[in-house]
Every structure is written in structure tokens, then in C-alpha cells.
């Protein structure tokens, strides 16, 4: 019998007595339903976009006018949620320092499938104005899979709504497969994450 490379995650950075408290299962890709059922489910998913209210950078200030009376994103089915367990989207609000990236990964991994990532601002695309910072990552898609990028420094609420609409189109077309991509390329993402997060005192997969 051929031995698989990793059946369970090693969780090697946790203390020995803590390892029993955390799950050591790897994330698994979710296969699609049959053609018509998948279409129906994707339509439903596209119309209830609940995002995690986690402001990770300066771009998060544009989420306040997005949700309040003037732009009122609730009419598009977009709502903020307080915990990762209840939300399906994580908004990366601009630059992510290494300390924040650790929290982003924790939150992203705790979210339920299917989950999507929208990345605001130029900092998370190529570093933006913090390209030479000692503490700010330059490409967010090295660490988590991104579905839609919204450029700008910072993007206006109109642009964010356009980005959400783009994500809706992608979900309806069945192209927003970020969570499956993360599960399939789990070793690649984990290696990139562990390369820069030196103080990794959490399980390998924060389910």
C-alpha cells in the first residue's frame, strides 16, 4: 500500500499537551453537485454575501459608508457578520502586516465552505505604498486564495459594490472556487505562511 505524504497534520508548533485540543485533519476539496442543483445553489450563494466585519487595514474605512444609508449595501444582499463561523466572505481591507496576516489566516480557516476572498486596495496586490516595509506583505494571494481584487487607494464604496457584483457573477458562473483551491494547494499556502510568520503558536489548520 502506498503511503500518503500527510494523512494528518503534524501541528508541530503546538505544545505536546495542547495537541489533543485541536483538530489535525486536513481541509478537503468539496466536489460539485449535479449540474442543475449546483446552478441553483450558486444562485442562492450569490445573493447572500455575508462578510466578516474584520477591518484589516485602512481600506476598511470604506466599508462603513458602504453599509450605511448612502450606499446601503444591504439591498444587494451584502451584510456584515461578527464571527468567522457566520460569514462567507472575508474582506482584506488593504495592507496586511505579518501580525494581522496571522489573524487573517485564523479567521479564513474558521469560515465555512464555500468561502470567498475579496481584496481591497493596492497594498494587498503589490505592496502599494508599503512595498518596502519590513512588516507588510506584498502579495496576499501567496497566503490565501483571492477571488476578486478591487484596486484603488482606497477604493470608493461604488468600486466595492462593483467588486461584489463581479464576485456574484463569478459565483453564478461557478468560477469562485477559492476554498477548494486552498484545500488542493494546502501545502503551498502553508509553506508560504510559515515562511514569514515566525511565531506560529497555533494549529496547522484552525478549523
Amino acid at each position, binding site marked *: 500500500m502506498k503511503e500518503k505524504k500527510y494523512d494528518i497534520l503534524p501541528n508541530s508548533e503546538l505544545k505536546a499537551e495542547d495537541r489533543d485540543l485541536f483538530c489535525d485533519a486536513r481541509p478537503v476539496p468539496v466536489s460539485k453537485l449535479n449540474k442543475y442543483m449546483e446552478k441553483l445553489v450558486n444562485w442562492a450563494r450569490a445573493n447572500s454575501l455575508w462578510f466578516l466585519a474584520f477591518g484589516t487595514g485602512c481600506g476598511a474605512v470604506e466599508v462603513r459608508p458602504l453599509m450605511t444609508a448612502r450606499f446601503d449595501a444591504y439591498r444587494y444582499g451584502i451584510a456584515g457578520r461578527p464571527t468567522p463561523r457566520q460569514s462567507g466572505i472575508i474582506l482584506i481591507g488593504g495592507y496586511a502586516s*505579518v*501580525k494581522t496576516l*496571522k489573524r487573517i489566516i485564523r479567521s479564513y480557516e474558521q469560515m465555512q465552505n464555500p468561502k470567498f476572498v475579496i481584496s481591497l486596495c493596492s497594498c494587498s*496586490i*503589490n*505592496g502599494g505604498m508599503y*512595498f*518596502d*516595509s*519590513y*512588516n*507588510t*506583505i*506584498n*502579495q496576499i494571494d*501567496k497566503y490565501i486564495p483571492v477571488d476578486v481584487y478591487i484596486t484603488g487607494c482606497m477604493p470608493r464604496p461604488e468600486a466595492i459594490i462593483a467588486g461584489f457584483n463581479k464576485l456574484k457573477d463569478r459565483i453564478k458562473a461557478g468560477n469562485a472556487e477559492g476554498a477548494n483551491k486552498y484545500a488542493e494547494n494546502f501545502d503551498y499556502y502553508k509553506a508560504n505562511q510559515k*515562511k*514569514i*510568520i*515566525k*511565531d*506560529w503558536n497555533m494549529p496547522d489548520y484552525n478549523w
Partner: protein
Amino acid sequence: MKTILNSVKNIEQIFGVLAKKIQRPDLIFITVEKKQVLSVLSHLRDIEEYTHLVMITAIDYLEQGKFQILYLLHNYKNNTDLGVKTFISREDAHMYSAHHLWGQVATYQRELHEMFGIDFPGSPRVNENFALEGWEGIPPMRRDFDTLRYSQETYNFRKGRATNDPKKYMKKNLHKE
């Protein structure tokens, strides 16, 4: 009412001042010896009514091999600010802890320890992580730390990013001669 000039004069008489700079009528910087800093700070707090510590920061004088530590104090009675500066060696960077004078000093000292590598023996939790979790290598705010090179080595640059020198770019595109 006590004026800032009176306070500085008292410090000069009691402890001795190496240098004095009157930045504004309500802002004066004095440089004192490293050994005198704690005495000067407690004198200013308890007798001259500089009860509020605004901040502590450090400046890296790489060429002279020194760090300058600045304590900025505020007096609510006459609304003046007094900066107390001192120089410490860059090689063996350590400073006497002042956490017994103000509660927030310990936090500033933790930050200085992490960002500049200045040690404050006896300060509470000074060796714990502050903002950089698990930092290795020379502290990032020291001037011999090359932040662009570190960023290029650690965080991959996306291909296609172009940078223009503003001077050349303006000359080429806007002000052709």
C-alpha cells in the same frame, strides 16, 4: 506660577545640563547625562509639576555610534512641554528603567526594546513580543537595517511593478526642454 524657564534653571542648578535648546516659548529640550535622567524626571514630575509623560522615543545616530532617548513631558498648570534627552552607547544599548515613575513607561520601553534593541533591565515584560511577533535579526528601526532589501527577500514582489523617479518622470513627460 512656575514658568518653564524657571524649571529649566532649577534643573541646571541642581543636576547640570549638557545642552539646552529653546524651540518655542513653551517647548524646551534639555540634554542631561545618562546617570542623571531618572533624578531629573522625578524632580520634574514631583516638584516642577511636569506630571504628564507624552512619549518616550529613541533616535539612532549611526555615524556617532549613539542612541538618543527623548522623554517628552507636559505641564498642565502652565501648558508647556519639556523634552529631556540623553545619549547612550549604541554598542551596549541599555538604559535605566523609569517604569516606577509613570505606568505607561513600561509599554514604551517594550516598544523601544523591540524596535531599536535598547534594553531596559528590570522593566516589566520588556522581553515579550510587542508588535513584531517572533522577529529575528537586527531590530527594524535601527538605521543600518535595510528595509527595502529585507522586503524584497522576505515578501515576494509581484512582477510588473514599475517605479518612476519623480524628478526624471516629470522632466520626461511634463517639462520637456
